[in-house]
Every structure is written in structure tokens, then in C-alpha cells.
């Protein structure tokens, strides 16, 4: 496995700074980050260092990475060439889904132009909509109910100005998950989470159910798996699922191959998740605002309109540096739904 010091050593600009920091036992960087580069309202940052004799500042570009993390080797090669030619020869894949290319301040704009030439763009810094992340999607995952990378690309194009021109009071993170398993923790981590869901209850295949039982599993085992007590199986007959209790968590579907998600697929919108400790309530999970929106032209129009309205409502009424989660917790979910004109038909909506 590549060691971080071996990778950084290749970049002559960053290695001595890193080394100095490690030797001193404290960060080599100073306060501050985002800088004002007229051509780039978002996507560029320059960090000042405390070791000006080695390096005064370290600049980087934040690239809006392809949704789902899918990238052709050809594009990756072009990115590597750009990082070598115009940057410091080092690339950082950030935890937020974006790619950071380190470069000198004067190279940030030429590097952006180079990235633009092969279809990549920068953004995702400051008080704007950050890079929209997505899970791997149906290309690799058998549970995907919707094409999350496609959805992230669609939302990314729709909200491109929000990603590149900061204009809010605080950052907004968005993620798309293909199903309720939510492998990218969008509900818990992102201010806005679009999660693949199905309407109704799981479907049961009679033949597969018998086969499943022949493999030594039992109906009571399936019953105990459902944390919402929605499944009832009497004497290993076909399971019955209570639609009022079923929360579409898909635990039963993962455990038993005789069950499959309902045929009507769509997405749910959650808002307010965040990992950060900043804010009154600290880290928090999101709350569901829209229980089901079909992935159709009309459905997506509704989804984007609700997101736009929510962002407007939050931006107009938030306190200083208040994330959407803190805003929702202060104002109340019901009040926000009322302001957005959404009739809540999903019960408590606290769990998905």
C-alpha cells in the first residue's frame, strides 16, 4: 500500500512543509483558506503557512468530481497530466467527494482552463452548494433502486450556479443514494439527501420463498430481522407484510432473496443531516421532507423546485453560520413543510 510520505515526497513543494510540521509536532499551516480570485468565485483556496522560508502559501483547486466516483482511465490520465504540468504533481481525493489539485496561486486559473478543456470544472468551496456525491449506483450495486450517479449529475447540472457562485450564509452539502441502505450516509451526513425508495411493501416470490426455506432458513428468522415488526410468517407460509408498519428499510430484502422491492421506484428527499460539531445541536441525522417522488420529468421538476424553495427559505431565515439541520431543528420540520407547501402524508417521517 502506498505510504502517504512516499506520495507527498514526489511533490517537492509540499514535502518540506509536511516534514517541518511533523518535526515540530504542530500544523505547518496558518489560519484562513479561501481566497478571492476574480475568475473563480468558488473552487480555489490558498492556505498560508507558518513556514514562509520554505513555502509562503499552498494553493489548490477543488474539482467537481464525476458523480459516483466513476471516471475513465483516459480522463484520470488527463487529470494527472494537468496536475503534473500546471500543478504541484499531487492530487488529493477529499472525503467530500471532490478532487483537489495543488498548484501555485498564479497557476490556478490556467489549470482551471485546462480542466475545462476536458469537461471538468471547479467549485465546492465557500458558502455554496458543495460537490454532489453519489453512491456507485446500479452499475455495480444490485440493490440500487434509482440511478444515483445519473441523478447526482442531473442535480449537479441543474444547480451548477449554486455550486460555483457562493451566495448562502453557510455551506450546503448534497448526496444521492441509490437505496435506503444509504451506503454513502447521505441522510446522516448531508444537508440535502436524495435517497432511492420504492412505494408500498416488498414483493414476495412464491417459488424463491420455497427455495429459501429449503436452504435451511425459517420464517421466524425473517420475522425477527424486521426491526419494525412489519413481517408475519405463520408456519413458514408466505410472509405477510403490514404496510402501516413497513418503513422500506430493505433489511428483509438483503436477508431473503425471495423478497424484492416494490415496482414503483422513486426518490425521497431528506434534509438537515450533518457530521460537524458546529451549531447548537451538534451532529444530527436528517429528517424526511418528501417521502416519494417518481424519477420522471414531472417528479424531478417537483424535486428541484422543493430543493430551490428550501434553500431560499433557509437562506432568507437562517442565523449566522446556521446549517440547514440547525435551522430545521430551530424552526421545526412541520413549520418548514408548511412554508414549502408540502402536505405531510408520511406519518412521523423520522425514519426511512
Amino acid at each position: 500500500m502506498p505510504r502517504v510520505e512516499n506520495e507527498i515526497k514526489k511533490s517537492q513543494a509540499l514535502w518540506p512543509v509536511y516534514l517541518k510540521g511533523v518535526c515540530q509536532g504542530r500544523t505547518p499551516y496558518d489560519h484562513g483558506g479561501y481566497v478571492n480570485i476574480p475568475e473563480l468565485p468558488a473552487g480555489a483556496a490558498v492556505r498560508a503557512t507558518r513556514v514562509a522560508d520554505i513555502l509562503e502559501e499552498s494553493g489548490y483547486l477543488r474539482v467537481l468530481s464525476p458523480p459516483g466516483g466513476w471516471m475513465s482511465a483516459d480522463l484520470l490520465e488527463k487529470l494527472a497530466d494537468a496536475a503534473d504540468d500546471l500543478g504541484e504533481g499531487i492530487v488529493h481525493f477529499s472525503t467530500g467527494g471532490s478532487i483537489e489539485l495543488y498548484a501555485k496561486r498564479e497557476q490556478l486559473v490556467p489549470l482551471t482552463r485546462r480542466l475545462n478543456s476536458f469537461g471538468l470544472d471547479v467549485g465546492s468551496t465557500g458558502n455554496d452548494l458543495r460537490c454532489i456525491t453519489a453512491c456507485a449506483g446500479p452499475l455495480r450495486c444490485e440493490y440500487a433502486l434509482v440511478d444515483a450517479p445519473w441523478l447526482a449529475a442531473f442535480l449537479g447540472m441543474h444547480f451548477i450556479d449554486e455550486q460555483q457562485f457562493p451566495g448562502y450564509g453557510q455551506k450546503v452539502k448534497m448526496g444521492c443514494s441509490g437505496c435506503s441502505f444509504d451506503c454513502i450516509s447521505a441522510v446522516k451526513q448531508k444537508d440535502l439527501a436524495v435517497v432511492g425508495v420504492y412505494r408500498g411493501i416488498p414483493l414476495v416470490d412464491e417459488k424463491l420463498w420455497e427455495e429459501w426455506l429449503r436452504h435451511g432458513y425459517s420464517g421466524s428468522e425473517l420475522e425477527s430481522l424486521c426491526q419494525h415488526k412489519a413481517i408475519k410468517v405463520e408456519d413458514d407460509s408466505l410472509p405477510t407484510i403490514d404496510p402501516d408498519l413497513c418503513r422500506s428499510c430493505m433489511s428483509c430484502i438483503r436477508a431473503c432473496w425471495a423478497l424484492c422491492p416494490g415496482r414503483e421506484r422513486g426518490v425521497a428527499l431528506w434534509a438537515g443531516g450533518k457530521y460537524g460539531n458546529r451549531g447548537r445541536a451538534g451532529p444530527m441525522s436528517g429528517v424526511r421532507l418528501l417521502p416519494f417522488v417518481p424519477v420522471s420529468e414531472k417528479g424531478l421538476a417537483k424535486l428541484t423546485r422543493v430543493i430551490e424553495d428550501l434553500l431560499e427559505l433557509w437562506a432568507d431565515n437562517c442565523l449566522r453560520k446556521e446549517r440547514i439541520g440547525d435551522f430545521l431543528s430551530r424552526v421545526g420540520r412541520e413549520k418548514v413543510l408548511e412554508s414549502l407547501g408540502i402536505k405531510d402524508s408520511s406519518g412521523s417521517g423520522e425514519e426511512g
Partner: protein
Amino acid sequence: MHEGGGGKVAKVKWDRTILEERARARGIEMTELHWQVLEICHDYYRKHRTLCTLRTLIKLSGLEKKEIYRLFPGNPIGEISQITGLPKPREC
């Protein structure tokens, strides 16, 4: 640029030459649209004793966010604050 006290600030005319020089030093060539935006900012300052946020400026001016970024590139409210000397809003 302004005078008076006790919460009331009298409106005075911009010293355009100084402001134009400051803007030019920051790479901005002032046009009539720039002046309109600055007037809106100053009107807001007279009432609230601070510069408005970008969102408020968008609403007051009726201009699109991208247009304001085109007029004052990089950080519009920061640029306006640097050119006019008006204090930035607390939110920034």
C-alpha cells in the same frame, strides 16, 4: 462620504473619482450599473449601518447573482466594502 450622528446618517454624494480609482486598483472599471449597485448598498447602509449581504443585494437590485459576480468579481460584497469603505455585514 457620510456625516451626522445619533443613528441618522445624511445622504451625501459619492466622491466618484476616489471610488473609481479604488475600483481600478482592484481591476474593476466602473460603469453606470456598478454605480447603481453602489447606490443601493449605500442606501441600505444609511438604514442599517452595515453593508447588505449578497442575497439582500440580489433582491434589492433585481440583478442575477452571476451578474453581480460579473460586476464585482471574486467576492462581490468584499469588493464593494473595499471600494466604498462601508463595513461588511456580520454574516461575512
